[in-house]
C-alpha cells in the first residue's frame, strides 16, 4: 500500500497508474515546481517527474519574488498544482481530478506491477535556501543519496521491525523535512503516507484515528505544543517525530507521557537533508547518520560524507562529543528560525531595504519574554521610511519574504541607531523596541453638521483634509507627552474621503527627532497618515513633497 486518503487505502497498482497518467500531461519542460497541497498528489507528481527525467524544484516558500527567481533559474519551469485557485505566475499543469483518473487497475494485471527503475545518479530535485544576496541558492538532490538517507531514517525509527505503518504529517511535502520524512520514507520503505495535512489539534487526532496502526506522527514543535495546549487526546500512536526547530525537553517529556508514545527528534538542514537523530527524553546527545562526519573549523562546523551531496557549513553551533555524536548549542548569529522556517537576517534585511520608500531598515530579535500557546516569537524590524505606512510596507514585504518573517512589531524611526562603525548592535535595537511607543490614541466623531465640501458624488459631502490635520495637531497639543508648537507637513496622504458624522480613531507617535507620525483610521481602515515636523527643525531636502 502506498497511501491513505480519508482513511481509504491506495494500493501500488493504482499509484503506478496515477503516475503514468500524470507523467503524460507534464509536457516537455525539464523542471517542475510541484505545488500540490495533497501529499498523495505531490508524491504522484514527484514520481511522474522522476520517471520522465524531470527535476522537481522545491523552494521553501512561493512568494511572487521567489517564483520570479525560479523562473530565472529555470525558464522552462511548469507548476504542477492541485488547487484550482492557484495564483502562481507560472505555466500551470493541473493534477487530474481523482475521479477522472484511470479506474483502479486490476492487481493481477502484470503491467500494473512494473515499478520504474531510477538510476541513483539521477538529479531529481533542487532545494533552495535563502542567501544574503536575496536570491535563493539551489542545492541538488540525487536519487541514490535521498534513498540512502531515508532508508537509514527507517532504521532509526525501528520501521523494519514493524508492520507497514501509516504516517500522518502536519508538514508540507515541499519542505525538505516533509519531503524526506512524510513522502520518501514511505515511498522507499513500503509504508503508507497520508494525503491530508492536518492543522488544528482536533484534525491531527482525527487524521490518526482514520488510519489503522501502527501510526507515526511527523510534526514540529509548533504543532506538538499546540496539541498539548489544547488537551486533545490522540489515538494510539507508536512514534512521534519532531524537527525544524529545537524541541524543549519538557515538551518532549509531556508529549511522550500524554500519548504513551516514543518521541524522536531529527536534526538536519535543507542543504544536507537530515543527518542526526536523538530521543530527547533519553538525553541531549545527537547520533549522526552512518557515514556522515562533522568537521569543526573555528566556530563553525562542516558536515560531509554519507548521503550528503557536498560539504556543508552547518548553521548551528555543534560540539562533537564522541565518534558520531554531538551536542547542539544554538544558532550562529545571523540565522533565524521562526516557527521552524529558516532564514538569515542578511537575506531578510536585503529584501526590507529593497522596498521602495525604505531608506534604511533592519530586522532584529526581541528577548523572548512572551510565551504563547504556539511558542512562536516573531522578528521585529525598525525602518526609516517617511513616506510609507505599516500596511504598504508589509504588503511590499509580503511579495518578497515568507509571511512568517513579517515583523512584529514594525517600528518607524527617524534614524537607525547605528554605532560609529555603522553596525547595529542587537541590544540597541531591542532598547528601541522597549520604549513606550504609542503617544496618543483618540476617538473622534466629526459633528454631522460640520462644514464640508460638495464632493464628487451628490449628497455625499467630503470633509476637507485640513480639518483632519487640525484635529491631529489639537490632539498632539493636549497630550502632555508630545511636544507643542507650530508644525509643518512632512508627508501626508489622504487615502479615503471622510464625511461629517463619522467616527475616527486618531493615532500619533513621537519620533526620536521630535516629529510626529500620525495615522487616522475609520473602522480599522486607514483614512490618512503622514508625518508632522516641528517648524523649529531644519528643512529636509524632500520636505513639502506630497506622498503618493
Amino acid at each position, binding site marked *: 500500500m502506498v497511501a491513505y486518503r480519508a482513511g481509504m487505502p491506495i494500493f501500488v497498482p493504482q499509484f503506478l497508474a496515477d503516475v503514468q497518467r500524470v507523467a503524460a500531461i507534464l509536457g516537455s519542460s525539464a523542471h517542475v515546481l510541484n505545488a500540490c497541497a495533497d501529499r498523495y498528489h505531490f508524491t504522484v507528481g514527484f514520481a511522474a517527474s522522476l520517471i520522465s527525467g524531470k527535476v522537481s524544484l522545491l523552494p521553501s516558500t512561493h512568494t511572487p519574488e521567489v517564483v520570479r527567481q525560479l523562473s530565472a533559474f529555470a525558464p522552462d519551469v511548469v507548476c504542477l498544482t492541485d488547487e484550482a485557485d492557484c495564483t502562481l505566475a507560472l505555466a500551470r499543469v493541473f493534477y487530474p481530478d481523482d475521479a477522472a483518473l484511470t479506474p483502479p487497475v486490476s492487481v493481477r494485471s502484470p503491467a500494473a506491477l512494473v515499478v520504474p527503475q531510477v538510476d541513483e545518479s539521477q538529479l531529481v530535485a533542487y532545494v533552495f535556501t535563502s542567501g544574503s544576496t536575496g536570491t535563493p541558492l539551489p542545492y541538488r538532490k540525487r536519487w541514490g543519496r535521498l534513498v540512502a538517507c531515508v532508508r537509514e531514517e527507517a532504521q532509526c525509527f525501528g520501521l523494519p521491525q514493524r508492520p507497514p505503518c501509516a504516517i500522518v504529517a502536519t508538514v508540507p511535502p515541499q519542505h525538505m523535512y516533509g519531503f524526506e520524512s512524510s513522502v520518501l520514507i514511505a515511498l522507499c520503505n513500503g509504508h503508507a503516507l497520508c494525503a*491530508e495535512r*492536518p*492543522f*488544528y*489539534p*482536533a*484534525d491531527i487526532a*482525527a487524521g490518526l484515528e482514520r488510519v489503522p496502526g501502527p501510526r507515526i506522527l511527523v510534526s514540529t514543535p*509548533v*504543532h506538538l505544543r*499546540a496539541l498539548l*495546549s*489544547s488537551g*486533545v487526546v490522540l489515538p494510539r500512536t507508536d512514534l512521534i517525530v519532531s524537527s525544524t526547530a529545537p524541541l524543549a525537553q519538557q515538551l518532549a517529556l509531556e508529549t511522550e507521557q500524554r500519548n504513551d508514545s516514543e518521541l524522536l527528534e531529527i536534526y538536519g538542514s535543507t542543504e544536507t537533508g537530515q543527518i542526526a537523530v536523538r530521543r530527547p527524553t533519553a538525553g541531549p546527545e545527537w547520533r549522526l547518520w552512518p557515514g556522515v562526519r562533522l568537521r569543526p573549523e573555528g566556530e563553525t562546523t562542516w558536515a560531509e560524507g554519507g548521503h550528503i551531496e557536498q560539504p556543508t557549513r552547518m548553521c548551528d553551533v555543534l560540539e562533537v562529543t564522541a565518534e558520531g555524536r554531538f551536542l547542539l548549542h544554538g544558532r550562529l548569529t545571523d540565522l533565524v528560525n521562526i*516557527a521552524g522556517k529558516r532564514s538569515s537576517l542578511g537575506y531578510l534585511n536585503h529584501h526590507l531595504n529593497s522596498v521602495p520608500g525604505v531608506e534604511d531598515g533592519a530586522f532584529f530579535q526581541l528577548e523572548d519574554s*512572551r510565551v*504563547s*500557546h*504556539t511558542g*512562536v516569537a*516573531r522578528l521585529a524590524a525598525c525602518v526609516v521610511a517617511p513616506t510609507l505606512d*505599516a500596511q504598504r510596507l*508589509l504588503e511590499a514585504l*509580503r511579495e518578497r519574504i515568507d*509571511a*512568517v518573517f*513579517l515583523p*512584529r*512589531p*514594525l517600528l518607524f524611526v527617524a534614524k537607525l541607531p547605528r554605532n560609529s562603525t555603522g553596525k547595529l548592535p542587537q541590544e540597541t535595537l531591542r532598547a528601541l523596541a522597549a520604549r513606550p511607543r504609542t503617544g496618543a*490614541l483618540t*476617538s473622534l466623531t466629526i459633528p454631522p453638521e460640520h462644514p464640508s465640501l460638495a464632493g464628487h458624488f451628490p449628497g455625499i459631502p467630503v470633509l476637507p483634509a485640513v480639518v483632519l490635520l487640525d484635529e491631529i495637531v489639537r490632539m498632539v497639543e493636549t497630550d502632555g507627552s508630545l511636544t507643542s508648537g507650530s508644525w509643518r507637513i512632512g508627508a501626508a496622504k489622504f487615502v479615503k474621503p471622510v464625511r461629517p458624522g463619522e467616527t475616527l*480613531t486618531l493615532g500619533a507617535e513621537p519620533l526620536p527627532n521630535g516629529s510626529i507620525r500620525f495615522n487616522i*483610521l475609520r*473602522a*480599522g*481602515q486607514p483614512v490618512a497618515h503622514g508625518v508632522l515636523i516641528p517648524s523649529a527643525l531644519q528643512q529636509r531636502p524632500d520636505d513639502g513633497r506630497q506622498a503618493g
Partner: protein
Amino acid sequence: MSDKAPLRQPAPPANATALTSEVARLIVEALNLDLAAADIDPDQPLYGEGLGLDSIDILEIALVVSKQYGVQLRADTEENERIFGSLRQLVDYIIAHRTK
C-alpha cells in the same frame, strides 16, 4: 420569582457586540498586535490581507478561543474557510458552538 431554583444556569444570552470586543481583545493580546482591539474592522479578512494574519496566528487564535470558550476548531469542515473570514464570522461561530 419562582421558588424553585433552576438546576443548571442557562448559557449567558448571546450579546454579540460585547463578545466581539472581547474576542478582538483576545486576538490583539495573544498575537501581540500593534493596534487597539477597537481598530479591528469586524468585517475585514483576518487571514492574508485585511488584518494580515498567517497560519501560525490562526493556530494561536484557535487555541486561545478553545481555552476561553471551549470551542474545538476543525479545518476539514467546509465552515473553516468562513470561520476566519472575519472577526464577525469567528464570533458567530463561537456563539453557535461555545461550551463555556
